[in-house]
C-alpha cells in the first residue's frame, strides 16, 4: 500500500475517502453509458480532482459494478452478444478498468498529490449490489474477480477496495483475489434493514472471515447515515482492524428498464454537508478512522468532512 496511508491507518489517524462518483456524474448530466469512461473521461477526471482538492486521501476508481456480466446479462447468451451486440463488448471491461485508473492517476498528478493520495481500485459484487440472491458462488466469484483484480494490479493501483459487498462468499473471494495479485485490500459491506449484511448474514462473522484472509481494513457503506452509525458499533465490537464507513444520502431512484446499477439518488438535499459531517463526526468519536461518502455525496461533503475532522495536518510530509 501507499506507505503514508499504511502508517496513518495503523496509528489510527483519520483517513479521508472521496465521495460518490456515479451519482455525482449523473447529477452533473453525464450520460451513464460505459461508466462515462469512453465519452466523458475528462469529466470523470475532473471529479477526481475535485475530491482531491476537497481533501480526499484515497480516491476510488469509477468502476463500481463494472464487470463483463453487466453487458453479457442483457443478451440471451454470448453468441447472441456477438450476433447483435456492438463490436468489442467482450473486451470492453478491461479497457474501461484501465481507463479508470489512468484518469484517477492523471487527476492525482494534476493535483500534485502523488505522495499524499492513494488510488483504490474499486471492485463490487458481480451481480446487482442490492440483490444478494443473484450473487455467484465463491469459486465463480473468485475466478471472475481475479480477472478484474489483475487489470488493477497491472495498472498499479495502491490498493483494492471491495465495495458494497452483499455476501460473505463474495467478500472472501475478493480478499483471496487481492492476495493472489499482491495488493492490499479493504472490504466494505452493504448494510441491510436488519443491520447485518444485505444477505442477512451476520456482519460480525463476515468481518472475522475477511480478517482471516488478510483484509487490512473493514468498512460499511451504501446505507443511510443512521444505519451506518448502528453498523459501525457492531464493527467496532467485532474487529481490531482499522475500520470506517461511508453512507449514502437521499433515496435510490432506479431507472425503469434495466438491471445493472444505475447511480441515481433523489432528495439528496436533505443531507447537506453540515448534517452529513455531524453524523460522521460521531463515527470518528466512536473510533472509526476511515470516512468518506457513498451515493449522493459530493465534493462539498468531503470538504466539510475534511474541515471537521481536521484530518490532515497541513504540510505533513510522508513517504
Amino acid at each position, binding site marked *: 500500500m501507499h506507505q503514508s496511508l499504511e502508517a496513518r491507518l495503523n496509528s489510527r489517524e483519520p483517513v479521508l475517502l472521496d465521495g460518490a462518483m456515479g451519482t455525482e456524474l449523473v447529477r452533473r448530466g453525464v450520460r*451513464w453509458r460505459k461508466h462515462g469512461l469512453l465519452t466523458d473521461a475528462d469529466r470523470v477526471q475532473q471529479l477526481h480532482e475535485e475530491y482531491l482538492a476537497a481533501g480526499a486521501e484515497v480516491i476510488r476508481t469509477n468502476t463500481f459494478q463494472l464487470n463483463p456480466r453487466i453487458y453479457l446479462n*442483457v*443478451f440471451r447468451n454470448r453468441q*447472441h452478444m456477438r450476433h447483435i*451486440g456492438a463490436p468489442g463488448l467482450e473486451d470492453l471491461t478491461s479497457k474501461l478498468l484501465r481507463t479508470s485508473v489512468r484518469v484517477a492517476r492523471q487527476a492525482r498528478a494534476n493535483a500534485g498529490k502523488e505522495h499524499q493520495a492513494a488510488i483504490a481500485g474499486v471492485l463490487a459484487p458481480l451481480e446487482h449490489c442490492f440483490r444478494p440472491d443473484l450473487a455467484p458462488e465463491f469459486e465463480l466469484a473468485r475466478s471472475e474477480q481475479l480477472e478484474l483484480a489483475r487489470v488493477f494490479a497491472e495498472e498499479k493501483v495502491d490498493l483494492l477496495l471491495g465495495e458494497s459487498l452483499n455476501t460473505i462468499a463474495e467478500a472472501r473471494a475478493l480478499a483471496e483475489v487481492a492476495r493472489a495479485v499482491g495488493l492490499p485490500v479493504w472490504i466494505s459491506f452493504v448494510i*441491510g434493514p436488519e443491520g447485518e449484511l444485505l444477505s442477512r448474514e451476520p456482519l460480525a462473522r463476515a468481518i472475522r472471515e475477511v480478517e482471516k484472509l488478510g483484509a487490512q481494513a473493514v468498512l460499511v457503506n451504501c446505507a443511510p447515515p443512521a444505519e451506518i452509525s448502528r453498523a459501525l458499533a457492531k464493527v467496532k465490537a467485532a474487529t481490531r482492524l482499522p475500520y470506517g464507513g461511508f453512507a449514502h444520502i437521499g*433515496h435510490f*431512484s*432506479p*431507472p425503469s428498464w434495466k438491471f445493472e446499477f444505475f447511480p441515481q439518488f433523489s432528495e439528496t438535499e436533505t443531507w447537506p454537508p453540515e448534517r452529513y459531517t455531524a453524523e460522521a463526526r460521531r463515527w470518528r468519536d466512536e473510533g472509526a478512522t476511515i470516512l468518506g461518502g457513498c451515493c449522493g455525496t459530493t465534493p462539498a461533503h468531503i470538504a466539510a468532512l475534511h474541515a471537521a475532522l481536521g484530518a490532515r495536518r497541513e504540510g505533513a510530509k510522508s513517504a
Partner: protein
Amino acid sequence: MTYPAIGKKLGAGEMVILDGAIGTEILRRNVTWADHQLASRPEFVRGIHEDYIRAGADVISTNSFQLCRRALYNHFRDEAHRRQIGAADLDQRADKLLAASVRLAIESRERAASGRPVAVAAAITTLEWCFRPDLAPAPQQAKREYREIFQVVKDAGADLVLLETLNSISEACAALEVAKSLGLPCWTSFVCDERGRLFTGETMAEMVAALEPLGVDAILLNCAPPGDINAGLKELLAQAHVATGAYPHIGRFDPPEWMFTDEYPPARYLQVATSWKQMGARILGGCCGTTPDHIAALGDLRQ
C-alpha cells in the same frame, strides 16, 4: 377507439404501417432515456410520436418499454430494503408513467393525425428482460402483473396492446389471456433467432397453435436483425391464419444504449419490407435503430 379502422384494413388485406423506434430515437436525438423522459420532457416524447404520425404510421406505440413495477422493484432486495433506501414514489411510479405514455401518444395523435385513423398501441414487453426467457416469472404471477399493467393502459385510452419482444409461449399466453379478458385487442410480437425460433427454442408452429385459439389479433416478429426476422417470418407465414407482421432492428445493441450503423438506410429498408409484404406480411414498421425516415419510406408499401 381507433382499432376497428385498423382491424378493418387488416381484414381487407391492406397494409398497416407501424411506427419506428422510440427508445433509440430518444438517444439519437442526444437525450438519455434512463427514465423514459415521460415526466421530465413530455414535449420531446410527443415530438417523436408526431414525427412518426407525419411519416405515415397507422399505429404508434407508447414509450413504455420495460416500464412496470417489477422493473423498478428488481433493483432492491425486497420490500423492507426498498422502504429503507428507495425513493418514496416507487410504488406508484410505474403506473403513473405508463398512463403518461398513453396520454402523450393520444395527444400526439390529436396534434398530428389530421383526422386520419391512427391507433395508439400500448407497447408492453416481457416482465423480466426481453432476451432472457430463463428469468420469466411463472404464468400465474405473470397474469397478476399483466392485469395491473393492462388496466392502467386501458383506462388511459390505449386502442390495443402490442406485446413486443416476447421470448416464450407461456408468458405470451398469460399476457394475451389477460388482455382479452379486459376486452383489449392484442398483437403479440416475438424476438426470434437465426433459425427462426423463439429464444426458448420453441417453434413458430407451436407458438401459433397456442396463441390463435386465445384470440390473438395479429402475430409479429421484432427486435432481431432483418436476416433473423426473415427466417422467422417464413415459418410464421406458413402457420398463421391471423394477420402477421414484422419490425426488425437495425444497427447494434451497445448496452445500455444503441449503436447506429448505415447498413440499412431507408431505401434498403424498404426493399426488405417489400419482400416481406410479397411473402404475405401486412403489418410493417421498425424496431431499435429505425427513424421517422425509415417509416416514411415504408409508405411505398401501400401501392
